């Protein structure tokens, strides 16, 4: 047994910062981010579940449609197209992307604590803020590509398996016509236009339509109580209808435009980023995963649709401060608003179904949520007993 004698140890005594370590710095190192990424990526069960939800569901849906169309093209329409795109983006990718990201954020925010690793990390002397911030790029490095993969699959199918003719109000119409072209086409198909296209206004001849969408007694004949209608009058009426319907027609496409796909992609990614950051902060605050995941799902699929539409006079500002409501106002033009309704060229902007909110306010709300939850999560991590 050795006799204890106070002595300076022979091992290295160089201060950490002297070696360029910057251990107290709040900025995480690349190695910290990389190992945190590895830790999340290696959660096989979680990763499989996230991939199934975010990529598997739209893929299976599209594959079934492709097969059905290949087998029975007259019964089943093309797998892709503009309508499928808007439906999948708003109803599936937007919602599931958020839930997937929130689940990963909640995992990243809680597992160090629940699995006992947090204590080891704190004992390294590394800034707790740096430990927290390292999770953000690491998690986003998983979430962003995952959401992008699902979105690219949807875009690919919707573009390459789009219908060759536009279906406008149940009628096949050539796509991409100019106003004059649309009117010319209408003049050449008066029966279809007069019988099938919506019209709200005066000036149409009173002609009956048959069950197959053709005008009865149109060729100068005269039925009971009906005036004679000439082909020229029918053509003029069709052009009148086409003129009124052109705005609606021009918002329908065979497949989404490049511009819409880019804007939709960014919008869905932003929603996923919000889901991850809020989930991370909430889980770090609560110190567990299950409850935050449930809360995030409730926020996304119950609270947000309710609060974005129910106009409660005394709570309007509170409703406006919900991130999902703000995101609904940023819905790209041409997409329906999540939860049904809306759509059209304006997207969420100025949508009468939504609680009114300016774009500036919506952007500020989103920034506040991102910053606020990051601050809360980091604060809890820095003050928590390990």
């Amino acid at each position, binding site marked *: 047994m050795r006799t204890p004698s106070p002595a300076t140890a022979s091992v290295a*005594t160089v201060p950490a910062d002297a070696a360029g370590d910057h251990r107290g710095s709040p900025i995480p190192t690349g190695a910290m981010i990389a190992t945190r990424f590895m830790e999340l990526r290696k959660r096989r069960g979680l990763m499989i579940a996230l991939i199934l939800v975010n990529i598997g569901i739209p893929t299976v849906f599209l594959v079934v449609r492709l097969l059905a169309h290949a087998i029975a093209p007259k019964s089943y329409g093309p797998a892709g197209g503009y309508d499928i795109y808007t439906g999948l983006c708003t109803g599936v990718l937007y919602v599931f992307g958020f839930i997937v990201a929130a689940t990963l954020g909640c995992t990243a925010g809680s597992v160090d604590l629940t699995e006992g690793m947090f204590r080891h990390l704190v004992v390294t002397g590394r800034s707790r803020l740096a430990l927290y911030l390292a999770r953000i790029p690491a998690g986003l490095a998983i979430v962003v590509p995952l959401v992008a993969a699902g979105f690219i699959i949807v875009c690919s199918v919707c573009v390459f398996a789009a219908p060759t003719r536009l279906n406008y109000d149940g009628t096949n119409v050539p796509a991409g016509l100019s106003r004059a072209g649309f009117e010319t086409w209408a003049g050449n198909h008066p029966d279809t236009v007069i019988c099938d296209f919506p019209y709200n206004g005066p000036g149409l001849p009173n002609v009956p339509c048959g069950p197959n969408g053709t005008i009865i007694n149109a060729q100068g004949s005269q039925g009971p109580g009906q005036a004679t209608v000439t082909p020229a009058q029918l053509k003029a009426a069709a052009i009148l209808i086409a003129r009124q319907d052109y705005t609606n027609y021009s918002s329908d496409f065979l497949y989404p435009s490049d511009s819409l796909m880019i804007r939709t992609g960014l919008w869905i990614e932003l929603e996923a980023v919000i889901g991850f950051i809020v989930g991370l902060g909430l889980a770090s605050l609560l110190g567990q995963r299950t409850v935050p995941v449930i809360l995030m799902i409730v926020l996304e699929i119950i609270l947000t649709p309710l609060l974005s539409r129910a106009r409660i006079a005394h709570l309007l500002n509170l409703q406006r401060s919900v991130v999902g409501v703000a995101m609904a106002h940023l819905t790209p033009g041409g997409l329906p608003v999540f939860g049904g309704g809306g759509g059209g060229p304006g997207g969420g902007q100025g949508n009468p179904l939504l609680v009114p909110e300016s774009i500036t306010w919506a952007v500020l709300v989103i920034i506040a949520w991102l910053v606020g939850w990051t601050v809360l999560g980091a604060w809890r991590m820095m003050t928590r007993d390990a």
Partner: protein
Amino acid sequence: MSTATVPDTFDQQTESRWAVETHGLTKRFGENVAVNNVELLVPRGCAFGYLGPNGAGKTTLIRVLLGLTHADAGTMSLLGYPVPKHRDLALARVGAIVDEPRFHGHLTGRQNLQILAAAREPAARDRIGPALERVGILQRANDKVSKYSMGMRQRLGVAACLIGDPELLILDEPMNGLDPAGMADMREMIISLVAEGRTVVLSSHLLDEVERTCDAVAIVDRGKVVRQGPISELLAGATLALQIECSEPDRARSLIDATRIGAHIEVGSLGLGISLPAGTTRDVIAEINRVLVEGGISVYRLQEIQASLESWFLQVTSRLGAPE
């Protein structure tokens, strides 16, 4: 007890003689004082045992030292760096296991160490292999931790300490879960770490292991450090025990009582068990023997029982536990 103040400046770090230094350190959980005004001085370059019964506040003190929880009062320093002021600098040279070592079960042992190495200096990554080899789990380094036994996780915990090339290791119950061979390995490793000039603070209730491993100890009870110093000096203050096999034990007892040397005597099946007050010289043993022989008692065996850390610990803690 030294009354040295904790150095407040960075430059004082190299001058500090103590690996761990606390003054008036206190930590409360509501009404319960888990760490009570602790004055602790751990010299550099030794193995230091931190002993106490369950619930005495051992782990809480370690958690306070490492910044895992905050102190309510007092000052402390690690390797001369005042903490929490220079906590990052201090912990850069510290490795620690606190409580049961737990890791990400879905990762391998090596991957867990990679996460910890990333939070340390870049050179820590190069120490992962040697650390795993040193603790004897290199062959299982690529297995998932969820498949590790408790003992293997303990070893991985020590490896996690070693990747920082620590000047000070604080090990909380490192023998837990280890089989006898593993305990022997751990003991040898601690001794070798000290031989390299490192300081090891070993918190344990395995008194035999501490006695075989450590140079100095502190006894903590109810949150307070009640004794500390080199083991040899502390045991020198323990009571002296004798075991005597003789004829006529009852008469022998009467003869010894008559000498008024203040011995506590118990008559048992093996003869007499005698406890002599602390500080008793060996001449008293010879005097007892002389009294018995002159009294006509046949002495078959007279043996001095070496005071062990365990017996001393029990003396100290039982005395503390007695009503005053």
